[in-house]
């Protein structure tokens, strides 16, 4: 395991992304109960790691992350940027009051954003495709993971209270 190959644009962009994404998280008004917030932070991290280590490495090695195939600290920091994204996904899901009809467009929008971000990552050498992998192949990955995230969130919301802000205001 290494820290990074050379500290250049990909490392700078990753650090910048982390600062921006986590600042947005802390600046946004808090809506959710602690366990829901913690769960969806971990959920984003898990999905990122799961897909990257399943199709991005090992026998199905479709992309190289950062400077080398060796697992580095910069790779780990890159995965940490996934964590706030699943939180933002459910945050705006509530803010925009997404329902059964608008869910389709919500997932399409987030998936296109995901592909767009990944395109930027290829420009700054965070992600380097290989073995015939194309940028648009990530679209089904984003659509699948975001559809599951939305449905899972909807399922939890049908079972219990997810937002504790009202409770806090009352006490």
């Amino acid at each position, binding site marked *: 395991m290494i820290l990074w190959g050379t500290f250049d644009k990909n490392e700078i962009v990753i650090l910048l992304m982390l600062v921006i994404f986590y600042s947005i998280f802390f600046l946004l008004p808090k809506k959710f109960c*602690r366990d829901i917030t*913690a769960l969806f932070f971990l*959920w984003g991290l898990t999905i990122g790691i799961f897909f990257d280590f399943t199709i991005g490495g090992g026998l199905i090695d479709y992309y190289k992350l950062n400077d080398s195939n060796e697992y580095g600290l910069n790779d780990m920091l890159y995965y940490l940027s996934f964590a706030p994204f699943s939180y933002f996904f459910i945050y705006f899901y509530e803010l925009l009051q997404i329902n059964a009809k608008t869910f389709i467009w919500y997932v399409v929008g987030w998936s296109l954003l995901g592909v767009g971000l990944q395109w930027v990552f290829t420009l700054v050498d965070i992600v380097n495709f290989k073995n015939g992998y194309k940028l648009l192949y990530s679209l089904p990955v984003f659509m699948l993971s975001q559809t599951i995230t939305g449905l899972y969130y909807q399922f939890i919301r049908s079972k219990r209270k997810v937002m504790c802000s009202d409770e*806090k205001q009352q006490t």
Partner: protein
Amino acid sequence: MGFAVFFFLAWLVTAFLIVMQKSLSLVENTFIISLILIISINWSWIIYEGLKFIKITEQPMDYTAFLFFRSVIIPIILVIQLNMVLQSESFAQTILIPIVSIGILVALTALSSYFHMTNYVKWNIGYDVLYFAGLHVIAYLSCWLFRKIAYREGGYL
């Protein structure tokens, strides 16, 4: 052969988790599975691919079986035993459940060697026992910590 066996085992443990009586909530179960999945993937990557202490097969079907073990079976078994421990009625049960769980995981590791999915290079089964025992400790601690942080009075993050 390895693929069929490990797919069946992955299906079996998942089905068992779904139907079993759970002492953890849906959110807690998902949190623990996610955490163990992250550790399992990172561990196998560092030990197998990075340090090359264990060689993984290059046969696609056997490799897929290895993925089922790493990404499905290990996290699900960990969360099943945690649910069982939390509803155990005696101290003996509390001790016995993780021992059986570690035993099953070690047996499955031996099975993955038998099917040539993995091959020890600079490794032995004793290290696997320690790793699985460590995973159990992490599962208990993370559950305790999650409950402590998440359900602190009046709180939302």
